[in-house]
């Protein structure tokens, strides 16, 4: 067994026991990354930083006061600003951008002793469900059929890297499902925390009322450990919650007896593949066998979550992405003689943004424009309030967590959606997007393989700020499912 395949929890124990060093663990990951160019998961490599951080971690461990993440090599999604290291949200418009500051999430991880191996591929500005909108070209799923598959998106590089054992864990961000869908497509664990649990400061913004960073790991326990290091109360993010960060790992008691788990009937969509429906039923049985009570619930506005999301998220994006003007940072278009400031903006943004980002910025601009603001944007925000109310009512009935499928399908072939309507790609988010709209924590867990041998995941949705209990339910499901399959190495 090579060290890069360890879970965080095991590596932590062996580091503390001085059986292995952070330097060895880091070298094992750097070697794995070097041999995995075909996955296109790491797009900026930082071996020098990794080696220096590993040496510092070893020194800290030797002193005996190392936190759980000390010496743990991780990959960082390209959306996080990392000081002096390219951070371009997989966009051409941020070519050459090296932030002068560190995001709160990466600073928290570094303060806890984590080791950064490099930056990970993603969809441009986190807009996409297949990694194919990336300026770096798509990352590839380590799980393969006779054709290459998408690792999902937008955190596709993070999911591919964790599934292929290139790092022990990775950071992701989730605006509509961007942590949970790639986790489900790669047989890994992904957690989107409650909105406000993890600081957004220094994370390149897509839709500010929906964006939330979280851990992508190979086990639920690892997600608990890593969330503890990522989360904080941050004066630099006005939406960061003033709540102490609990010990999430301590919440993993394995006991869910008497807990109520809701099964929302509206998630049983027309045309749901039989394998997904069967997996969902099996998941509910596993939780029942562990002593939980399974309760049918109704979330009546579920159907309207996707259209509401695709008004609200582009509206916020059009506003957030207005900052990319070719003046203060990033890439400026070549101008012709006589071009003025408007041409500077229009040419820079036409060259710098890819087609999906342009589409969403323009949709957002339209729904916010005079005359349409009430018809689209305000109406969507009202529907959002109703979607949140559905969840509030379920939790008020005593429901502790909600079990749903994570995705409507297994990973699909790269290129297969090329000629599809943009709306078809948006349907990937159908089970995850409600959670962002309501600000709730959501956890994707690998539960089985489909008939083709590809991983399938289920999602558990928790009460706000109840990540501990959510992770505990997840750990019980993980244990019962016993998912241990790994992709055959072809890269």
């Amino acid at each position: 067994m090579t060290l890069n395949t360890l879970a965080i929890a095991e590596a932590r124990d062996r580091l503390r026991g001085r059986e292995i060093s952070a330097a060895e663990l880091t070298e094992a990951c750097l070697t794995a990354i070097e041999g995995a160019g075909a996955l296109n998961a790491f797009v900026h490599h930082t071996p020098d930083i990794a080696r220096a951080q590993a040496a510092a971690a070893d020194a800290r461990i030797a002193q005996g006061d190392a936190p759980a993440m000390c010496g743990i090599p991780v990959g960082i999604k390209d959306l996080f600003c990392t000081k002096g290291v390219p951070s371009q949200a997989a966009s051409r418009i941020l070519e050459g951008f090296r932030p002068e500051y560190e995001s709160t999430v990466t600073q928290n991880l570094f303060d806890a002793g984590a080791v950064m191996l490099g930056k990970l591929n993603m969809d441009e500005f986190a807009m996409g469900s297949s990694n194919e909108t990336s300026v770096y070209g798509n990352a590839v799923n380590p799980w393969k059929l006779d054709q290459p598959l998408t690792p999902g998106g937008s955190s596709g590089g993070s999911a591919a890297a964790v599934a292929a054992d290139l790092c022990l864990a990775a950071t992701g961000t989730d605006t509509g499902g961007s942590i949970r869908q790639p986790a489900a497509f790669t047989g890994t664990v992904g957690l989107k925390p409650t909105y406000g649990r993890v600081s957004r400061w220094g994370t390149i913004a897509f839709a500010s009322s929906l964006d939330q960073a979280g851990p992508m790991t190979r086990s639920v326990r690892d997600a608990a450990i890593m969330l503890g290091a990522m989360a904080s109360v941050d004066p630099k993010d006005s939406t960061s919650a003033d709540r102490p960060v609990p010990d999430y790992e301590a919440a993993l008691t394995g006991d869910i007896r008497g807990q109520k788990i809701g099964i929302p009937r509206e998630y049983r969509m027309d045309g749901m593949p039989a394998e997904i429906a069967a997996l969902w039923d099996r998941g509910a049985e596993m939780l029942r066998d562990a002593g939980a009570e399974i309760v049918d619930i109704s979330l009546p506005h579920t159907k309207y979550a996707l259209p509401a999301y695709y008004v609200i998220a582009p509206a916020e994006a059009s506003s957030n992405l207005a900052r990319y003007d070719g003046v203060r940072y990033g890439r400026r278009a070549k101008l012709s003689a006589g071009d003025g400031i408007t041409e500077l903006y229009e040419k820079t943004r036409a060259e710098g943004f890819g087609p999906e980002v342009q589409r969403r910025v323009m949709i957002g601009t339209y729904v916010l424009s005079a005359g349409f603001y009430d018809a689209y944007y305000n109406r969507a925000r009202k529907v959002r309030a109703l979607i949140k109310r559905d969840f509030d009512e379920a939790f008020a009935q005593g429901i502790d967590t909600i079990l749903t499928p994570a995705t409507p399908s297994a990973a699909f072939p790269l290129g297969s959606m090329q000629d599809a309507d943009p709306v078809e790609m948006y349907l990937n988010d159908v089970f995850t997007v409600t959670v962002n709209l309501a600000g709730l924590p959501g956890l994707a867990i690998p539960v089985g393989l489909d008939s083709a041998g590809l991983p399938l995941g289920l999602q558990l949705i928790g009460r706000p700020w109840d990540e501990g209990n959510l992770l505990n339910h997840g750990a019980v499901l993980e244990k019962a499912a016993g998912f241990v399959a790994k992709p055959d190495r072809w890269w």
Partner: protein
Amino acid sequence: MAIDPSEARKVAHLARIAVADDALPALAAELNGILHFMEQLNEVDVDGVEPMTGVEKMRLKRREDVVTDGHQQAAVLANAPDAREGFFAVPKVVE
């Protein structure tokens, strides 16, 4: 509410994204497809519902009214495509 090519041109200009004239019909069709998807929201009864502004009611944080940062001119300009004499440089704006 349908977008025609001239409306698409207006939206592209508001978004400050250059779109070639011959690309406007395809852009209009794409935007219409997405807007059509959003029309479903009209089925929902939203009478008396307040638009959601945040997931949790919380008071905006306050802090001491003191200077916490500053004198970062070099860092602020470090990533500018064109910076001269301590300023961002752009094409002439005022005639």
